[in-house]
């Protein structure tokens, strides 16, 4: 098997995640989709790392995880406070930018 397949898999997962972000309204699910996209990227990085024979790709993936963790913490906090004030977790309800 060609390890390039990992990249195809990563691309597929990324695309699924992106589509999910676009079509789901529940903020939590949207968030999960974003996590999925990040994970897809990580997979690609790891595959690249193996391809190039050095560990830099893994380092990047590691940092991605850390940043994702930070993002999740803040993002979920936002969702919670949004829910508190609007009693809804739908991203469409937060449309104050409308006209």
């Amino acid at each position, binding site marked *: *098997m*060609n*390890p*390039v*397949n*990992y*990249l195809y*898999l990563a*691309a*597929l*997962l*990324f*695309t*699924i*995640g992106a*589509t*999910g972000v*676009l*079509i*789901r*309204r*529940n903020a*939590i*699910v949207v*968030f*999960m989709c974003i*996590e*999925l996209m990040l*994970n897809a990227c*990580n*997979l690609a990085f*790891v595959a690249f*790392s*193996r*391809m*190039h*024979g050095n*560990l*830099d790709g*893994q*380092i990047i*993936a*590691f*940092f991605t*995880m*850390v*940043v*994702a*963790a*930070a*993002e*999740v*913490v*803040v993002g*979920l*906090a936002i*969702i*919670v*406070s949004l829910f508190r004030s609007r009693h809804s977790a739908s991203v*469409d309800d937060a449309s104050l930018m409308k006209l």
Partner: protein
Amino acid sequence: MTAPLQLAATTTLAAGTSTGEAFQFWILGTVAVIGALCTVFMKKAVHSALCLAGTMIILAVFYLANGAYFLGVVQIVVYTGAIMMLFLFVVMLVGVTAADSLKETIKGQRWLALVCGLGFGILLFAGIGNASLNEFNGLTQANSGGNVEGLATLIFTKYVFAFEITGALLITAAVGAMVLTHRERTERALTQREMAEKRVRDGKHLPPLPAPGVYARHNAVDIAGLLPDGTPSELTVSKMLRQRGQIRDVSAEALNDLKALEQRAEERLDRTEIEPATFKREASK
């Protein structure tokens, strides 16, 4: 190290891939894609989260197969273990049972999303297909001193600034999350008396709220009591349930059951002259 890990290690130290890995890839890859699709399309957030967790575990296995032992473990421990749990907590806070409608409300959004997604995917595939990625060096050399040690060397030398900055970022994020979710009390708490007076002043509901219509079900507090005319009163249900939209009404079936039961009891007791009133709710349905 566990057995699969060792298996992966022996294979990935070489530049190529073994049949075992191919087998593993195709099976687990399919599962991962299905998991991802389920994440997107499950109606309930809890299900989505569970599917995502599954996908992530599979990814962890792929990491291991690619020689990223440290990352594989971190993926399971930190990501699947900690972050996904956080998700579940929030899902519970917001409401486990609430199912989203998957009906699209924005005109053209779904089509555009699908077109963009497909297009983007095709482009990515084309890009990967075009790239000359046939050379695989393998990690034999890089992992020779141990994967964790190798990563550590890099993190604390070449990437030390990035590392420190991500540390700062984490702390900031933690503080930020606290600030966002924490509500500071800005004035003195009202005494009970003041609260009572305020209620009177505001002309709010003064007496205690009515009790729910308890119809001995598995969770009867979420069933609204019926007003004399037979309509359910939302006031009888807890505010939190109201907000989550988790009020159930006493279903017509249950009422009919009740009616049948009563009728049978009447028959048995030979008291048939009383005809119970039909529920408006039933009629309107």
